[in-house]
């Protein structure tokens, strides 16, 4: 048992934390977010330069051979800074499909482009009726000579408006909710027949509604013709990464709140001298540490081979993260009073990001139900 970081991991942590502290302050973030795609190309280039974009890929493919712990380190720091860049969509998810589902040729073609910061990716999966069910895919893929033709509508595609290429799930065979028969395809952002309606999300990121009308892709765009297990695996890794991001956001928000309790005065004393607020701060701290523990569990289990064990740990983490994040987010606003309700103060932005994280890949209740159906976390 070892919860300590290795020397190399500590260096990585130092470098990302320094970057966030120096260049991702609340005011700086506002400026970065005003760029065309809602994030900064210069910051993205810096991520490439620091090796963040090639981090999880094997060294043979031009990466740095990092694992889930390295991803956790980055994501936690990104959570503190409320980072806007498409790291989750491009490196964690897009990169995940390539690492676990790509052929040697696909890896050789795509990984260097990602690592260099030239290629961003998005995952177009959610549909109007699917909510959080990964198997509910109605977008279709029909064989067309060597290639495929895709038709359908995808929604709330994170960074889908600016991604260079999009991973699109589409049904090759079976009924609308069958587990089998779901294919995964990599589609160019400017492919004929693909239209995207981009918009900001509640937390200041970007997403898009994507519609596919007779989009043709070649045979080398296929990442699996029975791809649900691959999708589940990568979504699991995304949840682990998001959990770490949420922990970073919660930790920063908690620190901001405790600081406020020490400095804000009412009735002639710091409001932190009121015991009810001291206890609330203590409860938030407990919620944060419980979340941190589960984010670590998810991280360490994300690469486990036993799919059942892995899925349960990931679901458990998403539940704990959702609950802790809701409590910490709501209480942080409450303890700030009016100032917590304003756009010009950071607390509300953490609260909104944490709320949106709960809505990604299944909220706490969704996972609670699935985990209970599967016999709970500890049963077998």
């Amino acid at each position, binding site marked *: 048992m070892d919860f300590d970081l290795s020397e190399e991991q500590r260096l990585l942590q130092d470098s990302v934390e320094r970057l966030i502290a120096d260049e991702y302050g609340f005011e700086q973030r506002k400026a970065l977010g005003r760029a065309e795609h809602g994030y900064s190309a210069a910051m993205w280039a810096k991520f490439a330069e620091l090796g963040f974009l090639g981090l999880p890929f094997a060294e043979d493919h031009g990466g740095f051979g990092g694992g889930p712990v390295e991803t956790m380190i980055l994501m936690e720091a990104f959570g503190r800074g409320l980072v806007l860049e498409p790291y989750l969509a491009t490196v964690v998810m897009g990169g995940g499909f390539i690492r676990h589902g790509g052929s040697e040729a696909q890896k050789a073609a795509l990984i260097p482009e990602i690592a260099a910061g030239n290629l961003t990716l998005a995952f177009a999966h*959610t549909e*109007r*009726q699917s*909510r*959080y*069910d990964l198997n*509910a895919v109605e977008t279709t893929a029909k064989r067309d000579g060597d290639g495929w033709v895709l038709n359908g509508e995808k*929604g*709330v595609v994170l960074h889908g408006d600016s991604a260079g290429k999009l991973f699109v799930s589409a049904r090759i065979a079976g009924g609308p*909710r069958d587990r089998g028969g779901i294919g995964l395809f990599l589609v160019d952002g400017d492919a004929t027949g693909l239209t995207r*309606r981009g*918009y*900001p*999300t*509640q937390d200041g990121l970007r*997403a898009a*509604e994507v519609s596919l009308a007779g989009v043709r892709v070649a045979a080398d765009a296929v990442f699996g013709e029975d791809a649900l297990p691959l999708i589940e695996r990568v979504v699991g890794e995304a949840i682990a990464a998001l959990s770490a991001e949420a922990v970073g956001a919660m930790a920063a928000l908690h620190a901001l709140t405790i600081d406020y309790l020490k400095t804000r*005065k*009412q*009735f*002639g004393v710091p*409001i932190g001298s*009121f015991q*009810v*607020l001291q206890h609330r701060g203590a409860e938030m701290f407990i919620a944060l540490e419980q979340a941190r523990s589960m984010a670590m569990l998810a991280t360490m289990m994300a690469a486990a081979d036993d799919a059942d064990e892995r899925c349960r740990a990931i679901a458990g983490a998403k539940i704990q993260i959702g609950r802790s994040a809701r409590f910490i987010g*709501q209480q942080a*606003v*409450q303890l700030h*009073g*009016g100032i*917590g*309700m*304003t*756009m*010009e103060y950071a607390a*509300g*932005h953490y*609260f*909104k990001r944490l*709320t*949106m994280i709960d*809505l*990604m890949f299944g*909220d706490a*209740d*969704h996972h*609670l*139900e699935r985990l209970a159906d599967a016999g709970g976390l500890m049963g077998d």
Partner: protein
Amino acid sequence: MDLRFTEAEIAFRDEVRAFFKTALPEGLRRKMQEGRHPSKEDLVQWTRILNARGWAVPHWAPEWGGTGWSPVQQYIFQDELQQAPAPQMLAFGTSMVGPVIIQFGSEEQKKRFLPRIANLDDWWCQGFSEPGSGSDLASLKTTAKREGDEWVINGQKTWTTLAQHADWIFCLCRTDSTVKKQEGISFILVDMKTPGITVRPIQTIDGGHEVNEVFFDDVRVPYGNLVGQEGKGWDYAKFLLGNERTGIARIGASKERLRRVRELAAVQHDGGEPLIRNRRFMEKLTAVEVELKALEMTQLRVVAAESRRQKGKPDPASSILKIKGSELQQATTELLLEVIGPYGMPYQPETPDGWNEPTIGPEASGSIAPAYFNYRKVSIYGGSNEIQKNIIAKAILGL
């Protein structure tokens, strides 16, 4: 004990309901159902419809346009109004400064201001909170100095709701700094057009503009704008806040929002079937309904006891209404967000009436996450829930 309304009360409820059905403009009803914000024009129009019927200020004394209804009738009216769902009358005039003027104002102030409040000819806002004085309101620093027959006001108010529309602001100002802090405060009415007033918008986390900072720089108003006596402003403010708390539970509005939760849950699918048929979801919804019913009963008990209580002395139990009422408003916005799921994510600012941009995701989903964020305010304003619990501990439990 009898839970049922009397026949007369039922007839009254039917009359009110029928009136709302025909008198509330359809576009405004839809806006309210979808959780969008009524505009200034909407509120003026609706207030005047009610005022023409004699129902804009039903809780006022009949000589000033009130109805003389019993507390139960008042309750029925509010409940029906919120479930219509229709906008509430602008509270700053009808529920705050209006009753203060009726109770403590001069004849001249009554004649001048009350009819214009009832018809929303004057839009009022509330200038109590300051940057350094929120929960500790009595520490407020904005000063009013008497010079001849004028007050000269200097300082800053903040969180002033809808000051951007306001014609008048009622302020708590320090008029004597030599006495105990509660005893040096006066209640002064200020015309927003007076030179020296600056209003600066504050954007809230949902992206909306409902609060403002209001700056006073040598603002001169007639001495006669003082309400009641100098130095008694704190008593009037407590009277006002007590009135505010009973209306603040907003049970009818929570009921209406739960109706919307059910409607949406019937068409949103989870695991291949409507969410409303999902056991876990229904248990969660039901738990909120039980709490809301309990609060409604508590509210009715407070209402029933009201007729026996000394006028103007709010029941400390009204703190229960404020705490639970705000928690349930928040719980209902939380449920709505849970129902809409991933489509809570797109940020879609409210478009002006008549705008035709198609919504992203299900109809009217754009207001759901913003409402969830915005409603965090209800446990902060009007005396935060922590302060309300302090009141219960002191005034009821004797701690």
